[in-house]
């Protein structure tokens, strides 16, 4: 059934746009109400019948994906949740997809946050993705949540040389010395990959400058769309890959669904959110094109 809904709504939108194009070629302007109807359908249809577009991972996204994909099983990955609920709609889908990807590839995942607000979002990822999707996983062996430490960049300055000094225990109070993942981890340099999620300060940039560069650990980042442009100068030398905004999340999800069947059946908030966005963007662009065609045909008519 949903497929029928998708087909019908796409037909309405694209058929309607073609009709409008034809009308404007004959020199008639479009009424504003018609535009409103198009936008409403373009946004409402994908909500009612989830339409997902095939997203193709751009190189910046693929580089991070490939790194996680190709690391040998049992590699150690640190994921830092440095954001707040306002950024969560953009960043949480990335957090979920990357955590899923790491665990499904058999990596050992350490989760932490530099923002106090990150703790709730970190436990959301654990409760919504990690625990239900990987029932056989063992806390402390396959993943561990070490929680939040105050101190911003100060925390990074310490863990770059000694992790347990800043985080003596995990979030449940278990000493890290008795957490199996930390058997071979003394400092950040012992990680094979660091994924910094966020968009404020401290955030991905601080991870690169205070940890990635001095300890020579590859850093991948997932950030809110607004800050992504500022991080490009660091790619690919200091940052191995960037997921920017909901679009970056959607690209990652689509790449993940492509290679891992289990993920294909899961909730993909990034891709779902991109459905209404993409359709609405296409509609707006189509209107710009149609508007200009109407403008130029109208002018030619006047010239004649």
């Amino acid at each position, binding site marked *: 059934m949903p497929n029928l809904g998708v087909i019908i709504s796409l037909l309405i939108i694209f058929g309607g746009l073609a009709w409008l194009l034809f009308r404007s070629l004959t020199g008639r302007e*479009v009424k*504003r109400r018609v*535009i*409103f109807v*198009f*936008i*409403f359908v373009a*946004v409402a249809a994908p909500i009612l019948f989830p339409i997902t*577009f*095939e*997203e*193709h991972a*751009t*190189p910046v996204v693929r580089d991070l994906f490939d790194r996680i994909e190709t690391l040998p099983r049992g590699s150690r990955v640190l994921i830092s949740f440095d954001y707040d609920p306002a950024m969560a709609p953009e960043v949480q889908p990335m957090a979920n997809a990357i955590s899923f990807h790491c665990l499904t590839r058999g990596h050992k995942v350490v989760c932490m946050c530099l923002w106090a607000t990150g703790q709730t979002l970190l436990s959301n990822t654990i409760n919504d993705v990690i625990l239900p999707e990987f029932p056989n996983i063992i806390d402390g062996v396959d993943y561990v949540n070490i929680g939040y430490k105050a101190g911003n960049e100060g925390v990074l300055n310490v863990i770059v040389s000694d992790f347990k000094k800043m985080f003596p225990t995990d979030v449940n109070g278990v000493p890290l010395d008795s957490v199996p993942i930390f058997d071979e981890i003394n400092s950040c340099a012992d990680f094979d990959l660091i994924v910094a999620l966020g968009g404020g300060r401290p955030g991905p940039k601080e991870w690169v400058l205070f940890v990635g560069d001095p300890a020579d650990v590859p850093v991948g980042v997932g950030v809110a769309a607004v800050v*992504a*442009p*500022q991080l*490009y100068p660091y790619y690919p030398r200091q940052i191995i890959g960037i997921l920017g905004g909901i*679009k970056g999340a959607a690209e990652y999800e689509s790449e993940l669904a492509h290679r891992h069947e289990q993920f294909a059946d899961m909730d993909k908030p990034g891709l779902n959110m*991109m459905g209404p*966005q*993409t359709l*609405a*963007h*296409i*509609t*707006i*662009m189509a*209107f*710009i094109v*149609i*508007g*200009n065609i109407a*403008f*130029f045909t109208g002018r030619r008519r006047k010239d004649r």
Partner: protein
Amino acid sequence: MRRQIPLLITFVVGTLLIVSVFIPPFGELETTFNIWFDIIAVFAFFLGGGNLLRVHIDKLRKKKRDWPFSIVTIAGFVVMLAAGLFKINNPGDIASAVDAPGSLFSDIFNSVQYPLSATMYSLLAFFVASASYRAFRAKNREATLLLIAAFIILLGRTPFGVLVTSWVPDSTSLLQIPNMAIWIMNAPNLAGQRAIIIGIGLGVISMSLRLILGLERSYLGGEK
């Protein structure tokens, strides 16, 4: 006199606050003045409420066009004001928050004011579309630049942007639409923003100086 004293007040207060930035003992003046400011603003709310009632009662009395709707405004105003000032149905005592969950105040907020605000805000999605149709036309060079920049950014945010230029080799990846969109945000956009910010900054500085020195008096109304 009626104009001289206000001008003097502005001069003294403005100068004090400028000086306080450089003289640490005056550092707390800023906070004090801001609290005063807030208190005066609350009195202004009552001035506004009084005017609102006056306008709508006047409409009712004179049976102007759409006068029945003025009853709705007055009723909404009075009920909400009573709910807030007397904390009707508020679960806590007098010290609890005015918008504590369960109170009439928060119920009206959640079922009337919040949905109305969110809906008015979301009208922007429609108007963004109609504005792009109506106004993004290549009428002249400036309009064309505006149009192209907006189009590239829009395209860069859809899968088509990736698809259209996926054949461009990675060594010239700047020509791929998503990267071009990022570059536009990073270079010309940044430059334009900065030029405007510097201009506005200077304008504000200059206007503030004019106000403090009493050169600009439009805010005091007429000469009468």
